[in-house]
């Protein structure tokens, strides 16, 4: 999932380096994420250039852009997963609710409990049952009380709109579920530890339209309680479920704005080209 830097796009009016701010943002809430001057490398290769973005709380922010533009890399910087890749390097500032994520004394493990992630390819743990998959995050983080685990199991499976489908086979192996169910299981698993944010990396890209619709419905429900950042290559999906959309291209943030505005009246030519399907 490396981001390939693209060659300079063939635009008529070369744009200055994008430092778009979402505008106008509703509410005086402190932004969940505040990203300033983020530059990211894989070894010698720079993949993100000077990203500045604010992610609003209790809303869905969609990240769109063509393949290889750095969307996933950006997402992984928000929960300190990027540093797991070999040769990963990062400069700039990422703040979670005011706290510097990359300060020296910050434990990435703690960050990842607050910022959960759902991956493109669903990855339930294969040697465990459905129930164990959901509760493993809690168990391995010290929660022992069976009653609490049971309660949380049911709650998160309901939150993931999966409870009715699996309540009779909680002990079945997780791989016995369908693709869409497995992905919702992964969502439940991520939700079990009560993160404040949920990062979703193209969660429905491998699923059929029905399963995709279920995931989108889920996102719309969840956003009232969680901040959600979702990477998607499906523009219709972004316009359906997000309040804010950020358009990335070749490692730069071209534009970030309210979704309706970005899709109907974008400020940058590149954005317009992309959303109207002239390339991508």
């Amino acid at each position: 999932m490396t981001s390939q830097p693209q060659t300079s796009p063939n635009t008529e009016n070369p744009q200055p380096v994008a430092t778009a701010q979402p505008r106008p943002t509703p509410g005086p809430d402190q932004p969940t994420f505040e990203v300033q001057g983020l530059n990211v490398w894989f070894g010698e290769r720079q993949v993100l250039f000077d990203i500045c973005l604010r992610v609003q709380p209790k809303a869905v922010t969609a990240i769109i852009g063509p393949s290889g533009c750095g969307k996933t890399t950006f997402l992984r910087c928000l929960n300190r997963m990027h540093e797991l890749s070999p040769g990963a390097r990062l400069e700039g500032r990422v703040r979670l609710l005011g706290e510097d994520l990359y300060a020296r004394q910050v434990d990435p493990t703690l960050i990842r409990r607050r910022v959960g992630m759902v991956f493109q390819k669903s990855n339930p743990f294969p040697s465990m049952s459905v129930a164990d998959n959901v509760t493993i995050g809690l168990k391995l983080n010290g929660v022992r009380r069976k009653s609490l685990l049971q309660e949380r199991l049911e709650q998160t499976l309901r939150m993931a709109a999966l409870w009715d489908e699996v309540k009779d086979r909680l002990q079945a192996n997780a791989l016995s579920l369908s693709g869409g169910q497995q992905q919702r299981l992964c969502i439940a698993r991520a939700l079990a530890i009560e993160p404040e944010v949920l990062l979703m990396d193209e969660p429905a890209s491998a699923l059929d339209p029905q399963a995709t619709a279920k995931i989108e419905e889920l996102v719309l429900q969840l956003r009232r309680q969680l901040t959600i950042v979702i990477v998607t290559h499906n523009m219709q999906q972004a316009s359906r479920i997000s309040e804010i959309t950020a358009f990335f291209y070749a490692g730069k943030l071209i534009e970030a704005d309210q979704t309706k505005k970005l899709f109907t009246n974008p400020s940058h030519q590149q954005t317009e080209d992309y959303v109207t399907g002239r390339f991508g």
Partner: protein
Amino acid sequence: MNDLHHQWRKAKNWIVSGLCFACALMVLLPLGLVVFHLIRMGASSIDWAFLTQLPNRAGEPGGGMANAIVGSLILISLAAAIGIPVGVLGGIYLAEYASDRRRASIRFAADLLNGTPSIVWGIVVYALVVRPMKGASAYAGGLALALIIIPLVIRTTEEILQLVPNGHREAALALGIPKWKGIVFIVLKTARQGILSGALLACSRVAGETAPLLFTAAGNDSWSRKLSEPIASLPRQIYDFAIGPYDDWHRQAWAGALILMMVALAINVTVRILMRGSSLPSGQMTQM
């Protein structure tokens, strides 16, 4: 195209195919013959007495290999107790933590060790343990076998862990689970059949080793009362009886060999069954 030439090429094809098939059969012939003779010469001698009695005095027919069987069990247990944890943990380091350079050098060292003739281990442990202790012992024998197990299990563990898709590790980390817990409770759990198989195969391999035991565990005509004493083992007993002068010893050697072969076979079959239930491909697991 010359029709005769074409016929000749087709004939050549069949001849060569036939030859290759014949060679494959020839290669398997010794296997069949060994199994056949083991059963023919040994089966009738395996009875309760054989399994529970000590060897009789030299020249007296009868007696059994009880001490050798128990001795082998003890030696393998000692070897496994030391070798398997070291090997598995080392394999975890290679697969989960090591940088490319470190991994390459440790793998290289493990491969060197794996290629060491097993009698060399006997010499080394003799120098390290038997000489200072002034005598052979089960400890020495167990250690020699453990040293064979360690590089073997390190490699098999590493191989099987590398088959675990990285997505699982990432998912575990994304849940805020500390790395070591992710490895122990999730990654290892996924790979457990493979790791267990590797450990079992290593045990099966050392169960049949004689050379390293020759001057470390030596042998014992009777029960060993302490682990610091020399101890009998099945391969050693088979060897002693096989080259000995008495026909009755030869008979018992066949019986002992049949038992040993059955144990090795049982472990191999167990491993195959184990690997079938695994979610990971077994690849070269059964090649030892």
